[in-house]
């Protein structure tokens, strides 16, 4: 990893040891936390299930091992069909949103950008609302019209904003952001209208807006995960372009980056990750805006550190919030995340002395 090499070999200039070790340390802590949340998430729920049973179910399902524990079919269903896919889905969604957020912030050179900056949230929500209101029910391998329309709505709005806004010329990024805001406003107005006429279906639209992982299942996970991981991997592979663009378009061009092309590709990939996350979990805020900042605060802005570590931290944050939401019962995951995550973030903002403070 270039971060390690950079810090290690450039230390002649006096970079403190803790800065050198920081990316690895942060990555390790986040990774261990992620594993801990996975274990807790599968072990805990509204129904009490013994640890031996949980371990037994997982070992028998994954490795075919029999450890001499017996359990009921209901226990097996709860551990294997409900909890595990839900925990994993929350991680995949967190990863996708955090990577998309980091990408949009870097691309647009705007610390306040989040995955929904290109109108994807309104687009997805409007798509979902239309699906709810349409008098058709289509279910293809556990995916209803709502998922398809939300996914398409997010992508269409991002495409529209990119086409209308462009990024060229001085002020191009500002134009793109404003276009995103304007298109988002129109879509949000249409969404409000749809909600107004939706009558009893309002609840379905509303629960999409709140976001949640109650619908998680293996099938949905297996469709969404490749999209999110694929987009994330391709973004990470293009981290150099993101880094170069930190210096501005002209400088990036002089560093050999095809700025127009790279920006288009990165916007498309980040929108893809966002759309896939939104389609299976509704609108989950906070993570995409805050996690990249939190990570930059700890390891600096270089893409090859920010992107992978954001992925892990985002996964840990959403899955932890969903675990709390499940245990408390009945609380939207976005609410838990903001309630628990924001104070932690504020604490870091105040206290971090890493050399990367905002």
């Amino acid at each position, binding site marked *: 990893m*270039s971060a390690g090499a950079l810090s290690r070999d450039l230390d002649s200039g006096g970079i403190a040891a803790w800065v050198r070790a920081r990316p690895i340390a942060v990555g390790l802590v986040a990774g261990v936390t992620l594993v801990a949340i996975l274990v807790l998430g599968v072990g805990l729920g509204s129904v009490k299930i013994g640890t031996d049973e949980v371990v037994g179910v997982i070992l028998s399902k994954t490795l075919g091992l029999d450890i001499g524990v017996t359990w009921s079919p209901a226990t097996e269903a709860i551990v294997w069909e409900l909890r595990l896919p839900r925990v994993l889905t929350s991680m995949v969604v967190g990863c996708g949103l955090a990577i998309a957020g980091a990408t949009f912030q870097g691309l647009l050179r705007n610390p306040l950008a989040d995955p929904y900056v290109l109108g994807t949230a309104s687009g997805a929500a409007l798509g979902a609302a239309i699906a709810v209101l349409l008098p058709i029910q289509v279910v293809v391998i556990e995916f209803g019209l709502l998922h398809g329309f939300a996914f398409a709505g997010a992508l269409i709005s991002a495409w529209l904003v990119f086409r209308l806004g462009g990024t060229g010329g001085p002020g191009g990024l500002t134009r793109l952001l404003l276009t995103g805001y304007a298109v988002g406003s129109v879509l949000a107005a249409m969404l409000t209208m749809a909600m107004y006429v939706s009558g009893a279906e309002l609840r379905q639209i509303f629960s999409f807006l709140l976001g949640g992982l109650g619908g998680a299942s293996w099938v949905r996970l297996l469709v969404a995960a490749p999209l999110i991981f694929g987009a994330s991997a391709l973004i990470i592979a293009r981290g*150099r372009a993101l880094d170069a663009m930190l210096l501005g378009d002209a400088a990036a061009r002089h*560093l050999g980056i095809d700025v127009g092309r790279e920006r288009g590709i990165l916007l498309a990939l980040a929108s893809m990750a966002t759309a896939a996350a939104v389609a299976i979990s509704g609108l989950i805020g906070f993570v995409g805006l805050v996690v990249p900042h939190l990570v930059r605060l700890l390891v600096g802005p270089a893409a090859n550190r920010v992107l992978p570590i954001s992925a892990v931290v985002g996964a840990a944050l959403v899955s932890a919030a969903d675990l709390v939401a499940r245990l408390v019962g009945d609380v939207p995951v976005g609410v838990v995340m903001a309630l628990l995550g924001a104070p932690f973030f504020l604490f870091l903002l105040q206290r971090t002395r890493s*050399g*990367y403070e905002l």
Partner: protein
Amino acid sequence: MTQDGPILAMSDLTVAYGPRTVIDRASLTIARGERMAMVGPNGAGKSTLLRAMTGMLVPRSGSVRLAGDAIEHVARASLARTIAVVPEVADLPFAMPVVEVVALGRLPHDPPFTGLRSSDVAAINRAIERVGIEHLRTRDIRELSMGERQLVFIAVALAQSAPILVVDEPTAHLDIRHQVEVMQLLVELNERDGMTIVAVLHDLALAAHFFPRVVVLDGGRIVADGPPAETLDGTTIRTVFGVDPALVRLPVPAG
């Protein structure tokens, strides 16, 4: 890349933004290892000529050849390894230590998945040393003065390790001592390291003192090209810059 012939050659270069012609049939040849300054009044087309020269914009007509190859056919990464352009001083959106900013200069050399190799690290350290900003390595670039930032961005271009260095107003934000130091650095890079230097300068005195060749641009045309003693004579100063030569004391005999 051949070793013979000019490293950069522009012939009959015309650049236009819409109906407005900015560069008008400019021809200019730069030999390997040359040190050349470009001067001219505001709006003369200096920056546009630099952009065309570095392959950043497509001319309406004419050609730019880099070591004999049409510049539009040179691959981006290869171009970036050949010509380093000191970036405009930009605001970074996030906190970033100087050493990491300078490291961005290695992007054209950095294979996508391996990260920095020891050659990269050496180049970064060398660039920081040459510009004399060792004391700033771990500072957040956003905390630095404009002048300090300007030095950092020069280091970014040096870290690119390209044989051609192009600078546009490298002293704009610098005090007189740093202006001279940057000029001395350019001379040293040229004379000791053999780099080809192309600099756009506002300050005629710096151009005349530190550059053996000065090109004067006016209204998109090259109106004079040669040693400063010839190109920055009283007539040029009067006709091109519209000032009384007596008011401009240049370190060359005014004609």
